[in-house]
């Protein structure tokens, strides 16, 4: 480890501990780290955005539009982007609506078919199982349980009818499935979160403490 690397390791360790200090309570170290990371992240995003967004997708193609007149189409998003910037003007800020409307139209129109395909059709298809032709009685039971669970969960999401009678009963079965599912997700997630802590502790112990020790010792 060079002296410079050691310096940066200390910076990272200091900031790591500053964030952890928030667990005790809000304090100047946390406030400093928080304000620092906001500034650094926006600055970084801005640079990357310019370098990897505006340059390759706007400036370079427009500069080359002499050879590729087709690229001139990109003047349209440029204008729309500039209209969007009129947000800051009190008088003309309504012009930014054109841009927002276009972005929304593109987003919504593009979203509908894939949403229907992957979230609705695929999952509906996956629910169609042959409940008799299963390797074992147990597998058959599981298949039926999934079927009942999917349908009752779907019924829980009925909005236009009051949840009473058969509908209410089925919706309640749906809630049972939802709760078990949520509990399972929660329990399942604990491991991932502990892993993150292990990762940070590994950094503090190996890179910072042992690293510094090794640097001083030799």
């Amino acid at each position, binding site marked *: 480890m060079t002296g410079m690397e050691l310096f940066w390791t200390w910076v990272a360790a200091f900031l790591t501990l500053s964030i952890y200090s928030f*667990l*005790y309570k809000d304090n100047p170290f946390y406030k400093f780290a928080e304000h620092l990371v906001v500034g650094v992240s926006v600055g970084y995003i801005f640079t*990357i955005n310019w370098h*990897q967004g505006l340059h*390759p997708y706007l400036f370079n193609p427009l500069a080359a539009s002499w050879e590729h007149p087709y690229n001139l189409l990109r003047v349209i998003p440029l204008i729309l982007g500039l209209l969007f910037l009129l947000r800051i003007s009190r008088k003309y800020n309504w012009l930014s609506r054109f841009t927002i409307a276009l972005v929304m139209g593109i987003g919504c129109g593009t979203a509908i078919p*894939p949403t229907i395909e*992957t979230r609705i059709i*695929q*999952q509906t*298809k*996956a629910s169609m199982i042959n409940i008799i032709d299963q390797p074992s009685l147990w597998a058959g039971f599981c298949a039926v349980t999934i079927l009942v669970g999917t349908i009752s969960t779907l019924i*829980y999401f009925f909005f236009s009818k009051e949840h009473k009678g058969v509908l209410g009963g089925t919706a309640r079965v749906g*809630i049972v499935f*939802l*709760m078990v599912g949520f509990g*399972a*997700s929660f329990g*399942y*997630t*604990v*491991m*991932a979160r*502990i*892993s*993150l*802590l*292990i*990762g940070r*502790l*590994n950094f503090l*112990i190996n890179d910072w403490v042992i690293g510094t020790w090794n640097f001083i010792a030799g």
Partner: protein
Amino acid sequence: MKFLFFLLQMDRRIVFVLVALAVVAPLIMPLNLPIVVGDKVRRLYDAIDQLPPRSRPVLVSVDYDPSTVPELQPMTLAVLRHCFSKEVPVIVTTMFPTGAGLARDAMETVAKEYPNLSYGTDYAYMGYKPGYSLVILGIGENFQATYPSDGYGTPSSKLPILKNVKNYDDIAIMVDFTASAAYEVWIMFAHQKYGCKVGAGVTAVMASDAYPYLNSGQLEGLLGGLSGAAEYEKLIGAPGTATIGMDAQSIAHILIIVLIILGNVAYFATRRHREPAQTATPQQGGSA
């Protein structure tokens, strides 16, 4: 009774200290608890294990950033080690700009352990290409046009491993490691559109979301979180960081379970001794 009331109103900072202790202790004193391999991990292992040496390459995409390294890097390393030990060619890519360094690190770490294999013939690193789903689609159309050069700047045409790689037809299986919905994009395009086999290694949180894809056959196999990585390490017989981490996991999980049980004991034992107003914390609304 006093203890129970204390438990009920315990400052959450005490919980924080307990969690920290539970994680640090096993890191210093490993317990070496046994590991049981699950079916989902074994499916991915089998899919790779059955490939003959010098088969069509495996495509590994490192689609995560440093924040999820603790969970995802061990599994990336385990899968790479598996491929390298079987002499199955590997192509490493990333769809995340921040994944580029991680992908290269992982590949170079494993490559050092197998000096008999050479870069360009047995493995290659393609680097980061912006465009995300467009890149994933691009590979399906023409691999070399999507990646004219590798991550070190060498023209792809000079890499023997890529000679026969035109598109997904020439990929034995692709394995995506991610903490985002990237694996869904791979399923949607590489699998649905081009019929490539897709396996995934995801963070433990994502894993339960991925189950429907596994059950519907859209995923070949699935590694979930650190335990998935530890299981894979066991399958290939090379215990690593994931195996050590699992000890800390065991203690931390038991701690949380004990806390929940204590909390409930205190809640029910003190119920009669509390004013009703005290229990009237806002409840989850009717439905939940």
